[in-house]
């Protein structure tokens, strides 16, 4: 137990992979047992992560592990893991979504269920490792390794176009990260280390033009993952072709890693370049918001609609980060969690209806509400959260982001905020339109239609999956401070380091008063903001 006491993060990160490899060795004939074991393992990891990460005495030192790993070609690589305010909730989101998704898609797959569960656990290790890694090469290793299980999950268990989608996903992400690797090697060579702090220091000594190139390399790698317009084209293919569980994790966690990469590495390491490129980033984000919403509106496939809505929602995240304000960045942090919960829930719900009707076309439905009232209730709550109705999580995140953008002090801030607000309206349009066509109205009279095949409402297992998600949606909408308190200090520190003298007085509270953020949560944002000119 002493080893475990000093290495809780190592255990959390690598236990899923080791179990996954063990499960992979089990024969296909006991696939159901393997699936159960995989679920129990993921559940255990979730319980442990809650106990270890949240159940800590207040004021105790942050969880961290640090040891030299190896030195080749003169570059030391450290085994450095840490959980702090920036990644705490993303780690918990990951450990939460993995068992939940396994449960939610229990019967969706017909064959090789054991291997799927094993790959799922390997993927969990990749995601957790990338989230907690504090050394850039270590981060890179997890970042790349994550592609392998996801590739097989899409490619083996996906839809008709799965091979194309899996290859596109793999190669697209790889292209960004390989170019990023060159930038990483360049900077590490200058710094003599892969530690972010040392590398940031080395970067600040470089000419500004070089910093900009390095920032672009970092930003492109992360933006592909987010995905930011125009690098998003892999996402609809991957989402639509992936099995439900793959889509949920892709939307819930993998996309977050892009935004997390920005806030953990790209912005702190190249603050000047980040401010220099804030405008193009924000412009692309606004385009993503509007474009994603418009494309969602014309989709005929519910899953594809949700996939494009991801582009729009993640555009908000990027806009919040580009605003370079505390409120906007905090909004982005919250929006990442929101999107993980809401879109994850939407994909699960779409999966549940697909398992019954074997179609996802909007036109195949109509009048689902009379057939599946419980399902409809859940779907409506999640839809409203996705639209950003007040009292649900979507509202808080989007409001903070728009607020931060509006007040950012950048010349473009107000205009972009106004245009992005249009995206919120469009979001309501495409979601509600889809809900109207699928759920309301008379039952689709066509014998072969999807509605006619809906013979059962949600079973207890599916309700058990949806309940925690709905609770979280409301909790995050009513008391968001639970989820952003941890990141307040690091985000404030980060933006202070981002050397933006012209706009800093306006964007940064000089000394955030205790409870300042709580006030913002209750909707007094403009007031609390103007206190600190």
């Amino acid at each position, binding site marked *: 137990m002493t080893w475990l006491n000093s290495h809780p993060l190592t255990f959390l990160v690598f236990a899923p992979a080791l179990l996954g490899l063990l499960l*992979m060795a089990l024969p*296909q004939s006991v696939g159901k047992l393997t699936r159960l074991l995989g679920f129990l393992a993921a559940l255990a990891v979730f319980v442990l992560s809650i106990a270890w990460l949240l159940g800590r005495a207040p004021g105790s030192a942050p969880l961290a592990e640090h040891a030299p*790993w*190896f*030195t*080749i*070609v*003169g*570059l030391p690589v450290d085994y450095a893991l840490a959980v702090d305010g920036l990644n705490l909730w993303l780690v918990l989101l990951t450990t939460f979504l993995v068992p939940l998704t396994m449960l939610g898609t229990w019967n969706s797959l017909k064959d*090789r269920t054991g291997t799927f569960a094993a790959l799922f656990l390997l993927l969990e290790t990749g995601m957790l490792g990338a989230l907690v890694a504090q050394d850039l090469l270590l981060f*890179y*290793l997890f970042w*790349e*390794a994550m*592609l*392998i299980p996801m*590739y*097989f999950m899409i*490619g*083996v268990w996906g839809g008709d176009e*799965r*091979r194309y989608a*899996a*290859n596109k996903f*793999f*190669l697209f992400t*790889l*292209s960004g990260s*390989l*170019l990023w*690797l*060159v930038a990483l*090697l*360049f900077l*590490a*060579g200058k710094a003599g280390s892969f530690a972010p702090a040392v590398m940031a220091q080395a970067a600040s000594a470089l000419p500004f033009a070089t910093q900009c190139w390095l920032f672009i390399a970092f930003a492109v790698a992360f933006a592909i993952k987010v995905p930011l317009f125009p690098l998003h084209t892999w996402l609809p293919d991957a989402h639509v072709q992936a099995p439900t569980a793959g889509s949920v994790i892709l939307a819930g966690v993998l996309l977050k890693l892009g935004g997390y990469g920005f806030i953990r590495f790209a912005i702190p390491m190249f603050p000047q370049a980040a401010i220099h490129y804030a405008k193009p980033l924000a412009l692309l984000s606004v385009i993503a918001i509007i474009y994603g919403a418009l494309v969602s509106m014309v989709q005929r496939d519910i899953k594809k609609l949700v996939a494009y809505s991801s582009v729009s929602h993640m555009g908000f995240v990027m806009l919040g980060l580009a605003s370079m304000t505390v409120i906007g960045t905090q909004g982005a942090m919250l929006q990442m969690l929101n999107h993980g919960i809401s879109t994850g829930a939407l994909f699960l719900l779409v999966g549940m209806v697909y398992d019954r009707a074997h179609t996802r076309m909007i036109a195949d439905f109509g009048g689902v509400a009379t057939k599946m009232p419980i399902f409809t209730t859940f779907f409506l709550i999640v839809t409203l959260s996705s639209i950003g109705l007040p009292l649900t999580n979507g509202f808080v995140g989007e409001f903070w982001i728009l607020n931060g953008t509006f007040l950012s002090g950048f010349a473009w801030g107000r205009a972009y905020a106004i245009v992005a607000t249009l995206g919120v309206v469009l979001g309501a349009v495409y979601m509600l339109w889809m809900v109207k066509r699928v759920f309301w109205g008379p039952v689709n009279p066509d014998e072969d239609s999807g509605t006619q095949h809906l013979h059962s409402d949600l079973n207890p297992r599916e309700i058990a999956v949806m309940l925690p998600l709905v609770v979280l949606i409301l909790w995050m909408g009513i008391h968001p401070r639970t989820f952003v308190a941890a990141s307040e200090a690091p985000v404030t520190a980060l933006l202070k380091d981002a050397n933006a003298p012209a706009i800093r007085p306006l964007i940064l509270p000089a000394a955030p008063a205790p409870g300042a953020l709580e006030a913002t949560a209750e909707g007094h944002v403009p007031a609390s903001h103007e206190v600190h000119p």
Partner: protein
Amino acid sequence: MSITPTEWAALLPLLFPALGACLIPLMALDRDQATTKWIRAAMYLVALAAVAAGFWFITDLWKAGAQPGFHQLHMDRLAQFSGIFVLVAAAMAILQSWDHFHQEGWVKGETLSLLLFSVTGMMLFTATTNFLVLFLGLELFSLPLYSLVATVRHRAEGAEGGMKYFLTGAVASSCFLMGGVLLYGMSGSLDLTTAALSIRAQGLAADPMVLAGAALLLLGFLFKVSAAPFHQWTPDAYEASPHPIAGFMSVATKGVAFIALLRIFPVSFAGMGAVGVRMQAALAILAVLTLVIGNLTALVQTNVKRMLAYSSISHAGYLMLGFVAGTPAAYTGVLFYLVIYLAMNMGAFGLLTVFGLVGEKTTFEDLRGLGWKRPAMGFAAAVFMLSLAGIPPMGGFYGKYMIFKELVGTGHVGLAILGVLASLVSAYYYLRFLVALFLQAPSAEAERLASDRPAVHAPLAGATVLVSAAIVLVGGFVQAFLADGFAHRALSEGLGLLR
């Protein structure tokens, strides 16, 4: 003339395989190999014993830190590294060939004998700086390989591939010889290190004759590593040869040519000043060409063996980039890369034997669905292909990592970007292998044919594949041990670099 114990120590690693090579044909003199089973087994055992004896002897030398010499033969750390490299590759090839030749129905003792002669030549080739001995080694390992390519005589393309390899190889050898003659003529010394010193002392470094000599010498090496534009023989020769031989050629020939170049290049070529700079520039251009041609051509192959052949061409490109960087750390990276490359390529070719693909039946179509039927082999295949593409956490990533790091560090950022783009392209065709194994169901006709045929049984090849997969996988976690304890020591203590 008596031979002292240290001189024996330098000679013995070469003598073991040579002895085995001589013994095997004698064993089969009055026996019909086709019918006498125990003779086959005995021949394979002798071949394995010869390889094992050489291996043990060299590892003993390595552990003791001894670097004996015998006249022009220097059994130093680098030569020991190369010896271990070649012997491991040969052992895997021998084990795989037992299964493969039984599948082909063509078990002949001379195959093993030729293979062992080739091993001897390879060890000689990397253990000297004397031009004549170098040439001797080159011919000793090349000639058996020419005939090994054509060893399965009842296959028409065997003879064709062998002939192509032989004719082009003969031209390359004569160029190599001519280059050496020119350098000898200008310097009066057969030892390339001394020749470089003398050429520099005389201020002849920019002399066209010297340049031509060095360029021709380099051409000989580049032919053996199958760098563009001297790569055309590679796909034909690999396709024609039995799978284990193709694997052995792709690994060992390329490996020893790079190791020998490593002995010559930094000391002799760079020692000649201007010549070294120009050779480096030539290598940079050819590396780019190799990467582009190798990767783009591999993309459109439908035959797995030809794909692997073009992939091995592209890997020569990455290794050449290590020479372009030209730092001691980059050379360490080259040696590290070779270690992992040995495991992943022997493994990849071994898979063809394991899956029982014989003759022309080596297209991607023939692989469909096999990953699920043989899960362990499928897992190994995933490890090899992802490692070949340079995806972490496999060992192949670190080879590229070391070379690219040094490229960027020496200011060749453009080449590094080209290198990573090349590996992006390569990811596509390596994924095709996995697509066939896992993502595609076998066609109905293939299923019917498979049910008619007896189950493929290839335990020895399967074992080598698993061992290779373990090396590649573990290599991604003990990279520092392999790089520092093995590759770096071979360079620092063998070559006197990096001291």
